[in-house]
């Protein structure tokens, strides 16, 4: 992992098309601005992790059958 230290209003460029800026720093929260191509998925990591977990859990379903009463 590349680790950099930035101050308020400083930024980091990734490749040609991504720029990450530090917009505000308050207590334990940092506001980050991300400029990136529209087709790039940008997602909070914990949300992505949970979605991955859901897909993995889904494959372990027991088959569920609903049948009509006669």
């Amino acid at each position, binding site marked *: 992992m590349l680790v950099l230290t930035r101050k308020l209003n400083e930024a980091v460029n990734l490749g040609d098309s991504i720029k990450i800026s530090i917009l505000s720093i308050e207590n334990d929260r940092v506001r980050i601005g991300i400029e990136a191509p529209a*087709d790039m998925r940008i997602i909070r990591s914990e949300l*992505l992790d949970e*979605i991955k977990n859901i*897909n*993995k859990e889904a494959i372990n379903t*027991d088959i*569920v059958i*609903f049948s009509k*009463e006669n």
Partner: protein
Amino acid sequence: MIIKTRRFGEIDISEDKIITFKEGLPGLEYLKKFIIIILEQTKPFYWLQAVEDDVSLPVISPFDIDKDYSPIIDDVVFEDLELEDEKDLLVLSVAVIPSDINKMTANMAAPILINIAKNIGKQIIIEEGDYQIRQPIFEAVFKKIEGGKSYAGSDEKA
């Protein structure tokens, strides 16, 4: 081609039914080819069966859960899907069905989109709106099965 599956036995698939997911699915990135299996007995759930490995996910139409489901989808997604006609768009939600079936949920915030004319699929993540990744669906599912009796049948364990 014939594939062997734990859930459905041997299935003969025609190439023109195979849906390609260029990026796979989150958490299952290695699986790029799927088919949709429809079983009367498990409706309203359908199954997304992988071709390259014996793995299948239960899926359900999000409109069966919320008839007003209207996630905001970026145009760039429709380009990825090569979608030319909105009628070619199929939307499915991944369902998690635990052994306590009262706790079944669907991922309404990360729908699977499929262009059925070109057999291209993609799972996208919707951050806006109040859609949940673990939306309880038991009640909605049972409303769909009027007068039905249900039981959860376990797969035979290998």
